[in-house]
């Protein structure tokens, strides 16, 4: 897990001086299958991205595997409504990305890193697989590279950065 990050092309970013500011749609602050750990003004996206994210969250709680009760996933920063730069991020301007918390074994709505004792690798892998199964998901940046389909990227010990196609 402590391997150096693999270089990867930067995600597309909207130019700050782009003539037409986009108008993204909001994620509902407390929707089915997820909870928010970011302020509502930082949770906007394209219609397709918000639709995909909300659909995946519903699937996440509907198809829980094992005996335990279902639990929501945590959604953090996405984009501002007008797509302006979101400090301290580098991306998060195109309305097509979302930060997701890895899964905790205790299911509490709290921060988590892949180095914590309560990090649930198996459930996080299931979460990654759910996202990867959606055709609108383009890439997932995350530093637990024992999980297939994620790309290692500095600063991603404590969240999955999911980038959508549309």
């Amino acid at each position: 897990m402590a391997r150096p990050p693999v270089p990867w092309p930067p995600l597309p970013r909207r130019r700050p001086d782009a003539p037409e500011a986009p108008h993204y749609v909001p994620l509902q602050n407390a929707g089915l299958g997820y909870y928010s750990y970011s302020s509502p003004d930082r949770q906007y996206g394209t219609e397709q991205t918000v639709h995909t994210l909300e659909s995946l969250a519903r699937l996440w709680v509907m198809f829980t595997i094992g005996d335990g009760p279902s639990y929501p996933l945590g959604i953090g920063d996405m984009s501002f409504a007008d797509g302006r730069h979101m400090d301290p991020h580098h991306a998060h301007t195109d309305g097509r990305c979302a930060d997701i918390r890895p899964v905790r074994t205790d299911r509490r709505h709290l921060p988590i890193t892949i180095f914590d004792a309560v990090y649930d690798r198996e459930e996080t892998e299931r979460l990654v697989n759910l996202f990867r199964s959606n055709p609108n998901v383009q890439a997932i940046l995350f530093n637990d590279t024992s999980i297939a389909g994620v790309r290692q990227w500095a600063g991603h010990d404590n969240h999955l950065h999911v980038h959508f196609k549309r």
Partner: protein
Amino acid sequence: MGRTRQSFARPFQAMMGTLLAMVAVAALAPLAPAAAQIKVEVAFSGLWWGYEQLEGMDMRNPPPMTTRATIKEWDAGDNQWPPHPDMIDVDVTVAAEVALKEPVEVSYQYEAKGRLTAPKTIVRSVIDLAPGATQVLHGSINVMGYISHVNRPKFVRVTTRIGKRPPVTAELPFVLGD
């Protein structure tokens, strides 16, 4: 020709090296004992939510940040934890075994793209300590006032200069993610 030059240059270099070594020893000799008698520690902290406040926190109406958190790394990967306040407080603790009365300056620089920014002074005063006493110098750095889509620093370096002693540095790394 090259050899001739070298044959002249070698004794000259040797002599200069000896002279420089003597100057260096002379310059360091009075500082070494004094440096050992002064201890400088730098700590970074800021106001943040308490960890126990995070669970179930309504981010539409978050509570005020009133808990003092020590910061070893400014990591903004998760909005709630670890603490990454906009404003970083810097506490420089100076402890002296001997009486000390000298000017002190604390400054900071960001490292970005392999270069250090121009230093900005956050404390400039005179430190006046009795033997065995300590003094804490306070300063603040507006981190989020600097970070932007253009400025992506890797760390901020705080430098403490007391009199003509060698400066003491401390660094706070940044994890800015995507």
